[in-house]
């Protein structure tokens, strides 16, 4: 009983999520007709409860449960942001799902489980727990990508994602087992001690290389990015949003927890590799995006570019690279919320956008959405007063301070290339007209995109407080 209470005290948000999960399952099974509504409201209530708990809950500052589970202020802040993002995601998903013909109540279950996985990952204190948390996220993602029963593309993307993800998991597990072989422990603190105290065994380095590959896959960075455009294209819009926002948060945690806390002393081994791959991701993602005619694939490729920025910043072992990468992750999540939120809102008005040509005449149909797209795209391209600019600027600045001038220059050039296709989106929205006369009115589904765009603009103009807050978290 003591043991249980001990665990329970540290894991209140997770337990709330878990009970919410059970309630949702029961709710879905006992409501045939309005399972969507039941599941939705149960999920929203659960996430709200989690957010409130994280906001006002009384946490003893640093819980450390026998090398299993840990919390600290920064972990709680990360969880808080993840929970808020998930709440917003749920609220926006509803508009997309209400048009979906098949059974849809389970959708929210997977959202809850993936949030649980993110929580577990960020609080984990040993490699096994960490792996289980990661799998929770990954398995829900595989399912969500294939959730759209009517689309064969979704099924294919889900299957490929699943198979490749299984390989990545295999790599991670193999890496963990090698690290265990080299250190005799899976507990973070003990592995860390082993890396600092004595001569580093080659076994550990090789194990770490396996883990690096898994990290690259989870981020969808070069050269293991193949699932990104496929899943963006095949999956439903809320799933793409999930992949772009919370999945990136999860990958960030993956990188941060393993490389920055466990293998911090080995940074001379992983830092150059990750830096190179980050730069390659930015270059590759942005260059290949140029040739895409499908808007969703294009967003997928641009994600690879953005992820490259995060990885480059995370690869800086010294300085404040981690904080800036976290800022970039959150900012990118906000931008994704705006962009996919707009697409969801449009599709709920039966205005589905797949290719560039579908954007034609959007300005005539809906000036509001067009202006919102303008804001998001400018922010993604890093045009000054917007938030995306500050995120990029800080990373470039950090790179220059850390004597990576050449890397900074490559990133700037790649961003310039990116500006080309971003502006192409704007061009299609504003300057190409089409002959359809659909008029789109504002609706509740515009709330979150508008909010996100407001954040991009307002915080972009007054960035100091927000940036400080984000940099303080990590």
């Amino acid at each position, binding site marked *: 009983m003591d043991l249980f209470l001990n665990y329970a005290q540290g894991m209140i948000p997770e337990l709330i999520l878990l009970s919410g999960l059970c309630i949702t399952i029961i709710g879905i099974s006992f409501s045939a007709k309005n399972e969507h509504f039941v599941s939705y409201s149960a999920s929203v209530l659960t996430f709200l409860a989690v957010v409130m708990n994280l906001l006002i809950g009384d946490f003893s500052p640093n819980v450390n449960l026998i090398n299993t589970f840990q919390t600290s202020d920064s972990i709680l802040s990360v969880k808080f942001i993840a929970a808020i993002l998930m709440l917003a995601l749920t609220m926006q998903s509803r508009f997309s799902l209400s048009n979906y013909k098949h059974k849809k109540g389970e959708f929210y279950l997977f959202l809850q489980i993936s949030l649980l996985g993110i929580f577990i990952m960020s609080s984990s204190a040993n490699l096994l727990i960490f792996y289980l948390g990661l799998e929770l996220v990954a398995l829900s993602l595989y399912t969500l990508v294939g959730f759209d029963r009517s689309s064969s593309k979704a099924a294919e993307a889900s299957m490929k994602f699943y198979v490749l993800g299984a390989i990545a998991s295999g790599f991670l597990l193999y890496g963990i087992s090698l690290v265990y072989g080299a250190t005799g422990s899976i507990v973070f603190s003990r592995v860390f001690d082993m890396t600092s105290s004595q001569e580093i065994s080659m076994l550990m380095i090789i194990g770490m290389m396996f883990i690096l590959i898994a990290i690259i896959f989870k981020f969808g960075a070069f050269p293991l990015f193949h699932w990104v455009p496929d899943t963006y294209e095949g999956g439903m819009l809320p799933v793409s949003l999930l992949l772009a926002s919370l999945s990136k948060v999860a990958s960030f945690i993956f990188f941060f927890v393993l490389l920055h806390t466990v293998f911090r002393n080995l940074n001379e081994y992983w830092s150059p590799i990750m830096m190179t791959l980050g730069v390659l991701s930015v270059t590759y993602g942005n*260059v290949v*995006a140029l*040739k895409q005619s499908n808007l969703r694939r294009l967003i997928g490729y641009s994600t690879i570019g953005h992820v490259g920025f995060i990885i480059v910043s995370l690869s800086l072992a010294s300085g404040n690279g981690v904080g800036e990468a976290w800022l970039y992750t959150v900012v990118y999540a906000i931008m994704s919320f705006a962009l996919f939120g707009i697409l969801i809102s449009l599709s709920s008005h039966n205005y589905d956008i797949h290719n560039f040509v579908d954007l034609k005449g959007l300005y005539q149909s809906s000036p509001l959405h067009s202006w919102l797209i303008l804001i998001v795209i400018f922010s993604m391209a890093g045009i000054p007063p917007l938030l995306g600019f500050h995120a990029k600027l800080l990373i470039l600045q950090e790179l220059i301070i850390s004597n990576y001038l050449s890397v900074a220059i490559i990133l700037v050039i790649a961003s310039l290339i990116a500006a080309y296709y971003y502006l192409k989106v704007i061009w299609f929205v504003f300057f190409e007209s089409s002959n359809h006369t659909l008029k789109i009115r504002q609706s509740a589904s515009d709330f979150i995109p508008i909010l996100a765009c407001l954040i991009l603009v307002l915080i972009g103009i007054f960035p100091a407080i927000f940036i400080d807050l984000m940099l303080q978290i990590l």
Partner: protein
Amino acid sequence: MHLLLSLIFIPLLMSILVGVFGDFISKRLSHVLTILGVLISFICSIMLLNDFLITQQTQDILLFNWSIIGEIEFQIGFLVDSLSLAMASMITFVSLMVHIYTIGYMEHDEGYKRFFSYISLFTFSMLMLIFSNNLLQLFFGWEAVGLVSYLLIGFWFKKPSAINANMKAFIVNRVGDLGFIIGIAIIVYYTGSLHLGEIFSQLTSIEGQLISILPSSSWHAVTVASICLFIGAMGKSAQMPLHVWLPDSMEGPTPISALIHAATMVTAGIFLIARMSPLIELSSIALSFILIIGSLTAFFMGLLGLVQNDIKRVIAYSTLSQLGYMTAALGVSAYSVGVYHLITHGFFKALLFLGAGSVIIALHHEQDIRQMGGLRKKLPITYITFLIGTLSLIGFPGFSGFFSKDTLLEAVHLSEQGGSHLSYYLLLMGVLITTLYSMRLLFLVFYGSYRSTHYPLAKVHETPWVVTLPLLLLAIPSIFLGGLIIDPMIMGGYFSGAIFVSPENQSLQEFIDIYHGVIEFIIHAFVASPAIYLMLLGILISWLIWYKNYSLPKQFASLIKMLETVFKNKYYFDYLYENIFSLNIIRLGKMLHKWVDAHLIDSVFVLGSARTVQQISSKTRQLHTGDLTQVALIFFVLLVIFTAFWIS
């Protein structure tokens, strides 16, 4: 704090309200709102000034940190001191008058609400400028007033001349702004801060620094920074040779000419130099430069006023000349006198402009003084107030302008700054010229016989009260203000907290020592200075020529004719700029465009690189086949590469 915020931001709020919701509110509500906003602003500034006079405390308020890049903090903050409060009171008062006046002047204009929104926005920008505690925000205000000025000069955007004028204003101001930005950059480079207080405390470290502009010559950083800042001021305050935009800006509506191009915006340059006095003081070269430019402007621009026939342009040249006086005062380190003249000038020049506007309304938008005459009886209030403004401008003893101009002349006279003797004589001649053109204007407009053929005199009648009320209200300070504030402002060291004068440049002190009150001051002026006699001479000459139509001797007339051609062409400045600079620059631009832009950049860099990138893009796209086995292989290839990387 709350007072200050409402002082600055309420005009902005009103401007946004009227600008954005203009379509939904009536004309009446739009002017009520904006006037209310400026009124609140004015009351706040008076209250703050009152507080300041009691407590004598300079406040440096940090509103928030806007952004941090490296070591440099970008802040939004306010510096409330004697200088900013004196300026704010003048600006809000004149702005209030102009707001009221606009109701009458713009009554039938389509852009009525737009106009009110602009002038409120202008008031906000100007307040941001003067209250700023750092160079960045100051620059923001600087550009914002420039922008609003651009919008307002081109307010009647269907008139081609208005569009040309606003383009000219914009482009000439860019030249000045470039100097300003370089000046800011130099200051930030050497002091590492944008905050005024920090800059001034760091000045000792910058004092000995040298900058080499050309390989062989090196300059003191202070001198270069000061001159760069002054170039910025030259653009905004229309000093020679960057003055050409101001006369053309008269294409805008008259209230704007009064508010922006006479009382407030054009004085921003003077304000900037006064604000930066601790820096400028360190460089006597820069001070001499300022002095020479100022006095040249004062003299030569005044002459041009003699040959203008557009009522507003005469006043515009007079403004140029008066700005020259203020600049000259800055050049002899008499910053307080410069600002003193700025404030008195703000009132009487606004009065003159609004009076001219009143005449223009009465004559149904006729601006040519050859078409006027004898309006004294028809427009009594306008006449009286215009007369007061003119007397103040020419420095008639007892009027507001008399005190400031005389003090200014004394300051230049007593100074030992390089070039001060030449300047003194130029400025003295300027007094004569000022009198000539002012009295010419007065005689031609209000005396003699009515000369217009297309608008009958019978239809001319006094303008409505919204126009005459501001005239009357502005006439009061135009008479009394100078005498009232000379005691505290100049003699009492009101500016001691805001303006710094180095010990060796204390020329004004001599004058302060012999000062014993207003009456003695007037008497002293008769005894010690030739200015007053020059002024009386000027009145006499102009009375003879323009009132009595006394014709001049023949030889004399031909000489004047020749000069007149030069004057009419404005010393060929425009010719120079348009035909030599602009044309060649356009030619150069075309050449550059053809060779560098079209050939090198477009076809080689832009299109070339775009083509290359596109080629790479389509090549690499083929890598993405979607075959699972291949992707799975990548995992292992990566593993082999990574391991090989560290195996040695």
